[in-house]
């Protein structure tokens, strides 16, 4: 057992209101520089929809992630042999057209326009060329199903849905959508890292954050194609790849990442998971239907004395283990099995998990109230407006089982709380539902509390970084202090 600790995440999709506050918080801190203008390390998509960059989930096109090959796994887009033809021209790399051309507006025209019969306008200007442009797409172009016949209808997750199901999804009064906020998943088996010819990308040992070493990136662009979530972006000005850094300077000082901190819906949770790094290769290679269970089994119980012993042996600090014991992520992912990895079939073993959304599912209720007395207490989930197949493709590794399990539990908790607080559902039925959903009253209460009443400190359980001890172990702290300097000597620029 090779215990590693990782700062992991849960997004509760039922609570996301699609306000994009998270994206703006991130943009203002990290990506408002020239060359990063088109990047959205955090973005919020409407599902069904084609997302950002358009059709990122279409791996026939972008060849992201891993695939099985002769009993092993290999990167879909590149590899030791295939690097040579791909390095000059990467056939799977998205271009700016797949994202969008970033723009601003010619605001000064509003003030400087000569007097005339019409109101002056602020024409859009490209942030790349500085010329006037016609805006053709943007990072959330299909927000709230805008242009759904083009966008939502082409969502790759609709694969396997019948024509009726698809029509139903799009028809008036049946229309349904939910929000899907995305950041880098800081995967256990990151395709971006494995693809980099220069070894510039790496996973931090202490907390699992995946970073691009800006001084070693040489613009070979393998990572851009290899990440199946399209969460490495290419800075077109400096000629370097950049990605979400999980606000590590904030995390190291005990603050939540900006998108977490600012989240209006309070949908985000952050905490340590301990996992067994020896099993990464084996689990990534499991048959698709076993991947979710496989990844869950890699996540170790932080209260188990054997695990603690091994963690200490690996140099994991006691405070980190304590933090893992209090981790909300551990509860959602491993104990309650409510949070699921997105597209685990890409085999990168993402460390960001999503609680599937119940709201659009349950909204199918007929007018006239709750169907709680029905014989089959969960029938409405299976007849949901978002077909289970769709959620299964997104969060269930292509299968509905795990999503169904989570939704049944979520529904039973809701019914239970309804019985307790409103009283129009009888407690007996509610408890029977809990039982059928593999949930106890105690667990239901805990889920309710962490979902609805959670405080800031319950949502973000950040371990102390212990950088000072790591430095102390290696050299004289005073010497380190004098030697670190102030970072880059000159501003990041393009070439010499």
């Amino acid at each position, binding site marked *: 057992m090779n215990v590693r600790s990782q700062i992991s995440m849960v997004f509760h999709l039922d609570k996301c209101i699609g306000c994009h506050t998270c994206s703006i918080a991130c943009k203002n801190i990290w990506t408002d520089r020239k060359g990063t203008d088109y990047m959205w390390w955090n973005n919020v998509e409407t599902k069904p929809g084609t997302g950002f960059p358009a059709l990122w989930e279409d791996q026939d096109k972008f060849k992201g992630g891993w695939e099985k090959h002769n009993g092993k796994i290999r990167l879909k887009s590149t590899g*030791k042999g295939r*690097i040579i033809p791909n*390095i*000059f*021209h*990467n*056939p799977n*790399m*998205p*271009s*700016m*057209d797949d994202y969008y051309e970033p723009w601003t507006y010619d605001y000064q025209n509003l003030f400087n326009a000569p007097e005339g019969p019409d109101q002056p306008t602020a024409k859009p200007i490209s942030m*790349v*060329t*500085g*010329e006037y442009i016609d805006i053709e797409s943007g990072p959330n172009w299909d927000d709230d199903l805008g242009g759904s016949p083009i966008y939502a209808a082409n969502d790759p997750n609709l694969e396997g849905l019948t024509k009726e199901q698809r029509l139903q999804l799009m028809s008036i009064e049946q229309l349904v959508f939910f929000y899907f906020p995305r950041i880098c998943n800081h995967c256990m*088996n*990151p395709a971006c*890292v*494995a693809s*980099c*010819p*220069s*070894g510039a*990308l*790496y*996973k*931090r*040992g*202490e907390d699992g954050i995946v970073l691009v070493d*800006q*001084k*070693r*990136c*040489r*613009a*070979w*662009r393998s990572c*851009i194609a290899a990440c199946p979530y399209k969460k490495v972006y*290419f800075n*077109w*000005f*400096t*000629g*370097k790849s950049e990605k979400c850094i999980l606000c590590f300077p904030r995390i190291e000082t005990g603050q939540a990442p900006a998108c977490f901190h600012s989240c209006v819906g309070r949908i985000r949770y952050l905490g340590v998971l301990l996992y067994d790094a020896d099993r*990464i290769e084996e689990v990534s290679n499991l048959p698709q239907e076993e991947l979710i269970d496989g990844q869950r089994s890699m996540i170790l119980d932080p209260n188990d004395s054997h695990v603690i012993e091994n963690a200490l042996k690996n140099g994991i600090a006691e405070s980190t283990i304590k933090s893992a014991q209090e981790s909300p992520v551990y509860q959602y992912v491993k104990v309650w099995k409510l949070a699921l990895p997105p597209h685990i079939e890409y085999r990168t073993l993402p460390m960001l998990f999503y609680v599937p959304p119940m709201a659009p599912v349950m909204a199918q209720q007929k007018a006239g109230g709750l169907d709680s007395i029905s014989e089959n207490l969960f029938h409405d989930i299976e007849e949901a407006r978002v077909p289970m197949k769709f959620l299964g493709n997104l969060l269930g590794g292509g299968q509905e089982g795990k999503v169904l399990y989570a939704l049944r539990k979520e529904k039973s908790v809701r019914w239970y709380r309804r019985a307790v607080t409103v009283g129009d559902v009888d407690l007996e039925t509610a408890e029977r539902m809990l039982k059928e959903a593999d949930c106890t009253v105690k667990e239901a209460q805990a889920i309710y509390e962490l979902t609805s009443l959670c405080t800031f400190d319950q949502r973000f359980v950040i371990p102390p970084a212990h*950088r000072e001890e*790591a*430095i102390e*172990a*290696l050299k004289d702290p005073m010497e380190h202090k004098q030697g670190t300097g102030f970072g*880059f*000597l*000159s501003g*990041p*620029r*393009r*070439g*010499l």
Partner: protein
Amino acid sequence: MSSYFDILMFAALPYVAVFTLLLVSIQRYRSQSFTFSSLSTQLLENKRHFWAMVPFHYGILAVFAGHLLAFLMPRAILSWNSAPMRLYLLEVTGLACAVLTLVGLIAMIVRRFTNSKLRVVSTPADVILYALLVFQVVTGIAIAVIHPWGSSWFAASLTPYLRSLFIFNPDISYIVGMPMLIKLHIINAFLVVGFFPFTRLVHILVIPNPYLWRKPQVVRWYGE
């Protein structure tokens, strides 16, 4: 008779060029490693990108390998060329690769200066580099056509000259009698070498060889 011009160009310039290459590259790597990048423009323009980058790189690498081979093992080349069919084959292959390079190079230049996004990321160094490379490839092709059988005479007369440079005892007698075209090709080659460390060509120095034997995943611990 070697003129001052010849001495300057063939005995002094090569050392200035190589010295500049080494000194500036090392210093740039040490203090400005951030600037080492191929400065890819594929994100900004992805349609004509293939038709520029692929022919150019395959072409130039093959041509470069040919020059290197003739320098390292002239005898092997000469004995290969002893049969006329094999000589033709080598010459035609070399010429084809050079033409491929030129096609790619022209495609690169056209692509870069006809696309408004690419113009934004073009620098004077790019323009100078294109000019040097075009001159180099065009003179190379002209030599192949006007003074054929270069694979033989390179091995017989240029290799000894280059070797004399390497042992710091330049013997330019091999060069002085050569046609102007060939002289220009050689001088321009030294200019490319000297200008190299100031351009994106430094990407050649950091081609990713450890990739072939490192483990797929990279983990770094603090302080490493």
